[in-house]
């Protein structure tokens, strides 16, 4: 016994770690959009090794979920599947159903007609009060009805029936008692409104007013039931699993198909307290007795999130064959791996403990043939979250071909971008920009990056420029506009530049836009305009103080842009930091990252960069800052890896300097007097 217990704990540990962030599993919608469960990853690559299920865990699972064979000796082994049901999990079991006669199979539905007994939980080896007799579970409604009708034959038959079911029960002594004239309707109304406390109070008031009044059994039973359901809900909402189970145990009559939400909550409570045996039995009870298709599917989804795979497989065998010959649970055999993947995506820090590689392979095989592409998209995001952009792009393409929604296209574009296939990323973002404002944003970001990467003597292709300006105008992109502003500044088209900066600032003021306006004013020697800008924005953007009339001082960018070194086009102005234009939110994150970096909070800076990357992917500026943050945290190898990665894409002074700095620090080769602090993070 202690042995089994410790193994149970092992499973518990392994389960509980994997459900850290999953939203209350029990209560998700049955037909949720798969993407809704797939948050965009926080960190693309986990350095942790993927860890599979340990052998011991597997052994334990086998013990707790004995093989799905008929007549298994375990007390909670699943019983034989219903007639006509086929099993995805155990194809061998399906031999009794002939795939060539689906119509015949469809007729053979499992017997789920008529009232069924409530789910009975196994109270285990704990002390059982054999004499305890819960009158709660006996419904005397019919008996009282017949008594009221003076139908003595029926009264006798009902007494006989109840006594057979509950040998210790005795007929109530007030069966034929004169009925009170008190109107119970107000109490029923309160009950109907879920105001159980008030209903109790009302009963007390009625009793005070008429000592002969006794609330009807029906009312009391319903009220008690309602209170118990509310208690189960409240307990499970607070994750008080033992409390949930305790209430359910006292009111086992609630554990019936009519109260599916209660069943689900109790099932989750069992699973969360390592009582997989009862959890399994409860889910099995639902699948054997309850008929609602949606609820059955949802039950399997919930079980998948909470039970080890063995249990899920056994439950899958309880699926009905539908008139079209399909099993009602087709596709759900991968619910568990789906939820594990969803979890891995949202928690990249946690290694892929829960994802069995073999199961993942099966899932991938399955996903390839699926008509809706949703599963392919899930695998796409999974790969994306692991930094496997090539695989991600392929899966997104698969999903996209199969007709998955816009999110798959977005994933595809982001993957291409991370693979530096910017041409295709830009092209697809532009093509589909009408389908989602997000695509317009990404398109602007990509093109803005391209513009920022242009040499001064390079120009954008006319067609590209037209598309870009149109999208920027249509989407009122402040960042696109200021990017265009700087583009025209670099090409001495000051008037155009001024217009774009004006637009940018009118859509959304930013330092880049405002400084751009100042540069234009400065170039045009428009003193009054410059002072107006300084008056309006001076408090907000300190960079403006560098603009002296006519001869602003040289201002070194806070974060060097890709071209700041080459672009000393005119010392009378400086081009302020132009972070990648990754949309308002992402850009805000870059500003955050910079200020955290400046304040010496390097880890916080990294966190902000992670978030930013999650939204918009990697950027040159982001990666350089990431390199320096790692450098500051003395993670020299990581810093070097980042600088080298950027350097291999496009070698710049920054990347080269980063690599050199790491090398120097590593080998203690800094010359004593070389720090002239031209660039902030080199100081």
């Amino acid at each position, binding site marked *: 016994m202690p042995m089994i217990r410790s193994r149970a704990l092992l499973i518990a540990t392994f389960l509980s770690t994997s459900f850290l962030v999953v939203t209350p599993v029990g209560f998700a919608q049955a037909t949720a959009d798969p993407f809704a469960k797939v948050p965009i990853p926080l960190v693309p690559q986990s350095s942790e090794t993927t860890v599979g299920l340990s052998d011991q865990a597997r052994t334990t699972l086998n013990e707790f979920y004995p093989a799905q064979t008929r007549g298994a000796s375990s007390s909670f082994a699943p019983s034989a599947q219903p007639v006509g049901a086929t099993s995805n999990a155990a194809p061998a079991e399906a031999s009794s159903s002939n795939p060539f006669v689906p119509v015949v199979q469809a007729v053979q539905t499992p017997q789920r007609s008529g009232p069924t007994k409530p789910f009975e939980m196994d109270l285990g080896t704990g002390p059982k009060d054999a004499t305890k007799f819960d009158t709660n579970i006996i419904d005397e409604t019919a008996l009282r009805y*017949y*008594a009221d009708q*003076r*139908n*003595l*034959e*029926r*009264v*006798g*038959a009902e*007494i*006989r029936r109840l*006594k*057979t079911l509950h*040998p210790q029960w*005795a*007929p109530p*002594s*007030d*069966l*034929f*008692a004169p009925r009170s004239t008190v109107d119970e309707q107000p109490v029923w109304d309160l009950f109907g409104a879920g105001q159980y406390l008030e209903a109790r109070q009302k009963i007390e008031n009625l009793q005070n007013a008429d000592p002969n009044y006794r609330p009807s059994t029906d009312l009391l039973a319903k009220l008690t039931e309602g209170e118990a359901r509310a208690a189960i809900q409240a307990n499970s909402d607070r994750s008080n699993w033992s409390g949930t189970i305790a209430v359910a145990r006292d009111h086992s009559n609630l554990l019936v198909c009519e109260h599916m939400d209660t069943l689900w909550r109790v099932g989750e409570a069992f699973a969360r307290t390592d009582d997989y045996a009862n959890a399994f039995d409860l889910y099995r009870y639902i699948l054997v007795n309850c008929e609602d298709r949606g609820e059955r599917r949802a039950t399997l989804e919930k079980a998948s999130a909470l039970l080890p795979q063995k249990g899920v497989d056994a439950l899958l065998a309880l699926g009905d064959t539908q008139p079209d010959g399909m099993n009602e649970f087709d596709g759900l055999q991968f619910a568990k791996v789906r939820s594990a993947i969803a979890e891995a995506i949202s928690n990249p820090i946690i290694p892929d403990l829960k994802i069995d590689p073999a199961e993942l392979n099966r899932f991938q095989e399955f996903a390839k043939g699926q008509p809706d592409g949703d599963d392919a998209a899930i695998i796409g995001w999974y790969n994306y979250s692991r930094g496997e952009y090539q695989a991600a792009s392929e899966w997104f393409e698969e999903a996209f071909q199969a007709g998955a929604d816009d999110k798959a296209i977005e994933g595809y574009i982001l993957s291409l971008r991370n693979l530096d296939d910017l041409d295709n990323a830009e092209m697809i973002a532009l093509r589909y920009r009408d389908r989602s404002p997000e695509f317009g944003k990404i398109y602007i970001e990509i093109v803005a990056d391209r513009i920022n990467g242009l040499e001064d003597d390079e120009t954008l292709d006319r067609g590209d420029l037209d598309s870009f300006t149109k999208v920027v105008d249509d989407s009122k992109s402040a960042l696109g506009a200021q990017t265009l502003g700087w583009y025209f500044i670099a090409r001495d088209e000051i008037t155009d530049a001024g217009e774009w900066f004006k637009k940018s600032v009118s859509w959304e003021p930013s330092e880049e836009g405002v400084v751009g306006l100042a540069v234009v004013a400065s170039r045009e020697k428009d003193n009054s305009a410059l002072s107006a800008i300084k008056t309006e924005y001076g408090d907000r953007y300190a960079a403006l103080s560098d603009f002296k009339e006519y001869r602003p001082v040289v201002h070194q960018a806070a974060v060097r842009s890709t071209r700041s070194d080459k672009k000393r086009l005119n010392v009378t102005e400086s081009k302020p930091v132009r972070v990648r234009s990754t949309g308002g939110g992402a850009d805000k994150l870059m500003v955050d990252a910079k200020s955290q970096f400046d304040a010496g909070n390097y880890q916080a800076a990294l966190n902000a960069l992670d978030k930013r990357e999650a939204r918009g992917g990697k950027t040159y500026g982001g990666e350089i800052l990431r390199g320096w943050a790692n450098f500051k945290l003395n993670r020299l190898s990581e810093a070097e890896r980042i600088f080298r990665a950027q350097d291999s894409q496009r070698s710049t002074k920054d990347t080269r300097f980063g690599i050199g700095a790491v090398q120097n620090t590593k080998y203690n080769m800094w010359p004593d007097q070389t720090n002239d602090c031209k660039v902030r993070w080199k100081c």
Partner: protein
Amino acid sequence: MKFALLVFTILVISSGMASGRKTESQWSVEDRWIQYVANPKPAQVEHPSERKNDLTIGAWQLYRSIFMADGGRIVDRENGAISHSEGQGYGMLIAATLGDREAFDRLWDWTERELLVRDDSLAAWKWDPSADPHVSDMNNATDGDLLIAWALLRAYKKWNVRDYLREAEAIVDDIVSKATIVTPYGSVLLPGTKGFSGKDRPDGPVVNLSYWVFPAIEELAAQMPVLAKSNLGESGMRLLRDVIVSGKTLPSEWTALGGDDPVSADGFEPVFGYNALRIPLYVAWSQKPDPQLLEALATAWSGGGEAGLDIIDVKTRTAVEPIRGRGYGAIHELTLCSLGHHTNLTSTETFEPSTYYSSTLQLLTLIAFSERYSQCP
């Protein structure tokens, strides 16, 4: 043992409810009833006897809500709300037979506390709520004692409470030692321990033939040798045959045995009345019903007229006054049906509480139908 086998044989022949498993061969009638109530057949086809069983169970619930006071006392509402050992005995018998443990316990508790106040195991016969003390006459009524003992025996068999058996045995011991007397007819049942013997009355001993609760005597005797030895049942049957078959009249309420022949006792009206009308019930309910006796009873007490049943003057054999009540009609129908006469059992189709006495007899007759004549429509 021989007796038990006989019981079983009769039962299998006469009762459609026996399931006939071999191990059940020793079961007595009430065991079978108990078994039947506890394990009713699935109600697919509504067999008439099943409907009657259900009616009996339901009727008892209604009955107890009306006639059983909270403390466990059966109230004879028409007689100043008194209680008596007979009523307690009937109530306990029905509760035990139908498996109503809660009612049985309450009835027995009250009986033990309020009526078993003599220095033996017999019950004081009458309890008056308006008298102080409630029990003023310490005499017993022997039929009440028989009924209580019978009920205790059935309760013992049903719930296996050994105390019930001991109490029943003590009562039977005292009945045999204090309330029987040997006569030329054999050992006969005195109506009470006091006032009915040859010493007490010139025409004594005086008996009440409706106090021979034959099924009670039979079941108790099967369990208790002291009662079997007294051959009480035989003496009762012999007396009845003498009066009814040989004397070609009905027995009167009170019968004097002091003379050569059993005659109506002095000081009592010579009528077959509310006491004596239970005789056909007990004879028909007996495990050895005497068809000749029943036929004679049915013929003599047939009502005939539109008024239905009557109280009969046993000397003139004429009707004195009509008897109305489902309970009495039920007994008459039971008698007819026991003889195989086709008759509409209107008095047991439904149960409607009326007087204490009629209602009680109707319930008892329903049980007698179930136990002995389930083939009746």
